[in-house]
């Protein structure tokens, strides 16, 4: 496992990011579908529960978070699968660059193309659930940090399920229990923002999870992808 030079690593990461960006531009459906999914799931709740905004506001944190969680998982299924089947991941392994580093770049791209759009969309979906736009900053802060940690956790799960037939369900089964702390702190921060309190405490906890995930998850994801490619 030879490590590239620092400059080479930056360049490699930039190339990975550029490639992901190009792929997303050429195949926009992959980026747009999770967003549409998020909107559809959110719209089911007023229909299935009640159109009263006061009641919807009470369950809004849970709805937004579960919706974002599932939409993000949906996109994670494709994080490594295509690249594994067309040999790109093998080239990453053989490139002489640190696989951890390349996969981190790929995960960052995934977050920029899924987590960030979901975050930007959440306040508008919140409006449909009776959430005031004044809560937008808190809602987006929580979702930005939370989806980031989810992308990292999901990169481990996506790596582990590489060699599995119909790995999508398994990916959810592996990732969702691990995402419980993100859900707990994220929904709490959102709730605090909605009722007009300061969500800072919960956001700090989310932030610490994000840092912990950034520290450990890429290593585990690289190990998982190596095993999956054997």
């Amino acid at each position, binding site marked *: 496992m030879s490590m590239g030079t620092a400059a080479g690593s930056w360049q490699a990461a930039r190339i990975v990011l550029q490639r992901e960006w190009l792929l997303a531009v050429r195949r926009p459906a992959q980026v747009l579908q999770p967003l549409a999914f998020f909107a559809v799931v959110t719209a089911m709740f007023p229909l299935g529960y009640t159109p009263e905004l006061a009641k919807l506001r009470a369950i809004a944190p849970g709805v937004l978070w579960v919706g974002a969680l599932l939409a993000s998982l949906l996109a994670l299924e494709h994080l490594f699968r295509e690249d594994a089947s067309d040999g790109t991941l093998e080239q990453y392994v053989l490139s002489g660059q640190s696989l951890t580093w390349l996969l981190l770049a790929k995960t960052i791209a995934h977050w920029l193309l899924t987590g960030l759009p979901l975050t930007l969309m959440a306040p508008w979906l919140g409006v449909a659930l009776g959430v005031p736009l004044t809560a937008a900053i808190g809602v987006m802060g929580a979702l930005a940090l939370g989806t980031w940690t989810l992308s990292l956790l999901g990169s*481990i799960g996506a790596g*582990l*399920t590489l*060699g*599995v*037939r119909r*790995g999508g369900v*398994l990916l959810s*089964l*592996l990732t*969702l*229990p*691990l995402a*419980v*702390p993100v859900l*707990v*702190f994220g929904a*709490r921060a959102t709730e605090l923002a909605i009722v007009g309190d300061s969500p800072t405490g919960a956001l700090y*906890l989310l932030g610490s*999870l994000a840092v*912990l995930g950034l520290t*450990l998850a890429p290593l*585990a994801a690289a*190990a*998982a992808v190596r*095993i*999956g490619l*054997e």
Partner: protein
Amino acid sequence: MGTNWAWFHRFGSPPHVYRLAGLLTPWFAWPAALSILAALYGGLVLAPPDYQQGEGFRILYVHAPSAWLSVMIYAVMATAAGIGLIWRMKVAHAAAASCAGIGAWFTVVSLVTGMLWGKPMWGTYWVWDPRLTAQLVLLFLYLGYIGLRSGIDDVGRADRASAVLALVGVVNIPIIRYSVEWWNSIHQAPSVMKMEKPSMPMEMLVPLLLMFLGFTLYFAAVMLVRLRAEILRRERSASWIREALR
């Protein structure tokens, strides 16, 4: 030069471990049976009913040891998986594989006994009590581990992939427990049972400790039996098996 690691490396040899596990099993099984029987007698007959919970508290003698084992087994499983990953020791992976099913069942037992206890005490089978919730998440973690193992056909790859998952899980379990605790303290007033644990009278405590011992020994015995079965399954084409089974 000075340290002799031969004893450690012998644990990498399936025939050696197979024989050793067979020799050790009765040494765990019999003490387990004796201490569980003694603890049952002590807990169900000798111990007085609880002054608040009446006879209902006696389910504790199954519930608490199961809950302890459900977490302990995950730690054992992750340790074995880590050893297997680092030293590429197949037997350690086999040990981790034989832990998963037992751990999942003890988690189920602790959940079911917790629910049975909750019906008379809380008036309902299920309350989103932090410890029950954490146990439920632990069950999902076990199910994910078992699911990943059965999803990959190649044994070596299934071993290593599930080992990574077990290690990720072991980092996550304390965080999950803490977050669920925190979540619950916001949403729900402390339940009736959150009273300070009074020091148990000896005639209640001794059977409980005996039960902890008995359950742990029982786990060791069952794990060794399952480890032997797992080794047989993996080594079914090896020549030593014919000799061992003669």
